[in-house]
């Protein structure tokens, strides 16, 4: 099962009435959707608002999602449409070029979207990036390899098991322990900002 299949499985549950599954999709893609929206909406508070609206639209339309494309591709279209509609409602013209998904992410990497973030938020983000990197570096070799094969190379547990010559259960356990180690480091950075 790849990530597409996870998304499809979650979508099916949403279609079956499970809102918890939609919450997971929101949390998985919120940072990407906000990234898309902030290309069009530069004010931070407004971009949050429009991004929420995009998810609401996605929820309302989710009955139409049949799995022919990746969920994120579908969500991306909804997000861009929501942003453009918002611009029109503000009396502004949306950008004429419709950038492909990959290009959009490159543009973001160019730093443009950082404009819409506050300095404090930007600092926290950099801290988190640093903490993740440090945590991975500090991992025992087999955990580091497992998490890298999974997250960076996108291999399945089965492929990783073959590559590392160990049982799938061990792969699953190693990846989990790697995640826990990373989580330990980033949780305190987020805890004052997360008010759940």
């Amino acid at each position, binding site marked *: *099962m790849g*990530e597409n*299949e*996870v998304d499809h*499985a979650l979508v099916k*549950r*949403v*279609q079956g*009435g499970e*809102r*918890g*599954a*939609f*919450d*997971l999709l*929101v*949390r*998985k893609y*919120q*940072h*990407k959707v*906000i*990234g898309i929206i*902030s290309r069009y909406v530069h004010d931070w508070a407004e971009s*949050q608002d429009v991004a*929420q*609206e995009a998810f*609401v639209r996605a*929820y309302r*339309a989710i*009955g*139409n999602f049949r799995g022919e494309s990746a969920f994120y591709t579908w969500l991306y279209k909804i997000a861009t449409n929501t942003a453009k509609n918002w611009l029109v409602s503000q009396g502004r013209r949306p950008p004429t070029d419709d950038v492909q998904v990959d290009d959009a*992410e490159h543009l973001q*990497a160019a730093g443009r*979207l950082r404009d819409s*973030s506050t300095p404090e938020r930007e600092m926290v*983000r950099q801290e*988190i*990036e640093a903490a993740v990197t440090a945590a*991975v570096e500090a991992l025992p070799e087999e955990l580091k390899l497992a*998490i890298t094969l999974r*997250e*960076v190379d996108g291999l*399945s*547990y089965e492929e990783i098991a073959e590559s590392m010559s160990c049982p799938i*259960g*061990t792969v*699953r*356990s190693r*990846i*989990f322990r790697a*995640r*826990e180690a*990373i*989580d330990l480091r*980033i949780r305190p950075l*987020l805890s004052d*900002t997360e*008010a*759940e």
Partner: protein
Amino acid sequence: MSIDPNSIDSSSIDFNLREQLSALADGELGPDQTRFLLRRLDAEPELAACWQRYHLARACLRREPALLPDPSFAAAVSARLVDQQRPAASRSWLRSAAGGAIAAGVAAAALFAIATPPQDAGSGPQLSSVAPVRTNDLELRQPVQRVSDRVWAPLPVSAPIDPQLEGYFLRHSGAAASAPRGGFVPYVYVVATPASVPAQIPLGDSAASPPSR
């Protein structure tokens, strides 16, 4: 998928759930476990936060530009959805049967009305032969033999529906689907209107009529 038992502190249920969450994030959690895990989500908000952090870490590892959203973002979306109707699953499936089928169906059936046989433990099925009562519409004539006033249980029009209870029957119907009393039969009692509001049925008195409304 077995897990190395030596590496787990299984005294913490939190730990086990997070472990499953990790597998789910990779698409490597089985459907039953996924279902159980998603059910636990409602009771454990920390799980959702953990899921969010896993994906944040993933974005960092993949060098994806990740803007940190407001911490209450997901909750705000949830709040907006409260008033939304549940989405309808997409159906490219057969048309519904015409409503006229019921009249035809009932009319075509020969309906017998009998009084319940006297209690006779172990004496096998008793079917008294009574002249059949044919009907053209849904109004049924009173049979000549002993009758109670409740010939046709009233439709519980605005009976509340309990999704959890329906879920149990629905799940079991899937398990029973291969039994001799199987195929579509187990789904019949899920789709047919319950005769009473699903609630306690006093066991000492199973002859109790459905509660009156």
